[in-house]
């Protein structure tokens, strides 16, 4: 069985995988990092978004072996010293979640939006940028508000 080695949330990790092992499976099953979710089988929902070498990608459509040597950040790697990241705190403050299933992906997408588009985000920008993240509960309104608020506090 091939072995994959990468850095996840600042820690070097490695594990046995198959060719077909998806990055999300490696994170959840090998590393027990279950914050990254799988919400679909069609690369549409974005519940699985993580950052690979600084870019938001869908870990359900990424092979674990293709992340060999990469720096991966998951939702578990976002808080600092036991304190929520401003983006996470903003989701809490703005009721940006109901069941919470989509939230890890939304937060990781939100952080990626800030990285690419800056901290002062227009509502339309956020809505367009959330094209790849689906929420079945909130109706998006408070998610957009959360990202706008979180971005401004970063």
């Amino acid at each position: 069985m091939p072995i994959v080695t990468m850095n996840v949330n600042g820690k070097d990790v490695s594990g046995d995988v198959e060719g077909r092992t998806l990055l999300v499976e490696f994170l959840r099953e090998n590393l027990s990092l279950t914050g990254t979710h799988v919400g679909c089988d069609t690369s549409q929902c974005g519940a699985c978004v993580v950052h690979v070498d600084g870019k938001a990608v869908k870990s359900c459509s990424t092979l674990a072996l293709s992340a060999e040597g990469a720096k991966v950040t998951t939702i578990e790697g976002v808080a600092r010293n036991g304190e929520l990241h401003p983006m996470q705190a903003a989701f809490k403050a703005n009721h940006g979640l109901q069941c919470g299933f989509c939230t890890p992906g939304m937060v990781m997408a939100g952080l990626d939006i800030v990285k690419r588009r800056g901290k002062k985000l227009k509502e339309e920008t956020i809505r367009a940028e959330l094209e790849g993240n689906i929420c079945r509960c909130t109706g998006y309104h408070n998610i957009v508000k959360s990202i706008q608020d979180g971005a401004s506090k970063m």
Partner: protein
Amino acid sequence: MENFDYHRPAKLADAEKIIAKQKEGVLMSGGMTLLPTMKQGLAAPSDVVDLSGLGNVGIKVMKTKVTIKAGTTHAEVAKSGDLKKAIPALAVLAGEIGDPHVRHKGTLGGSIANNDPAADYPAALMALDATIITNKRAIAADKFFKGLFETSLRRGEIVTAVDFPIPEKAGYAKFANPASRYAIVGVFVANHGKAVRVGVTGAGPGVFRQKAMERVLAKDFSADAVAGIATKVDDLNEDMHASAEYRAHLVGVMAKRALKAAK
């Protein structure tokens, strides 16, 4: 998904060697189409040769043409300042593929080699009269796309870059499927001075040129010129998203929008 042996060569020569040895092997670039296809059990290759380790990435704008290397992601094409000046419509098109996460992985080479009938890039390559460069030869876009998921690529042939002549003006408009963001119909128009080319994706079993529009646009490159130019319904796609008649109608509407947006 069935299991397979995974390869990630760092050199083109190694990729060629590996794929030549594997009869049931496939090439993968960003994997944004291949992996979902494999998850659904529609493909079960013995070997996957991942080309993302080749580092074949970059956009070079020259006097009369732009060369984009095959491994360049949609996100990189969409944000390239040089490209936005040379062929802004192409940057716009790349920025409308899928969603931001998909654009971080999906590549130009992967998209055209797969030739999904609803993919965006084929329309641009047709309209811009692009040349596809492979490890073996150069192929004109007109000869490259062969309809439903088929191209003139031979076994083991690897797309390495695409050359785009810089047009005087070009524009792209698509009517996207709201769930997948694939084109229900997408039209790319390009004015090359002497000739005008119109590439249509999503409407038919493969990308095609709307030649009736090209003829009138050569005389008058404006949205008004294509009013009343019909697209033959016979060969168009029909599915739960849109009937063939609706798609034919959309070709006209998207052509007008593309012409209005042309820069």
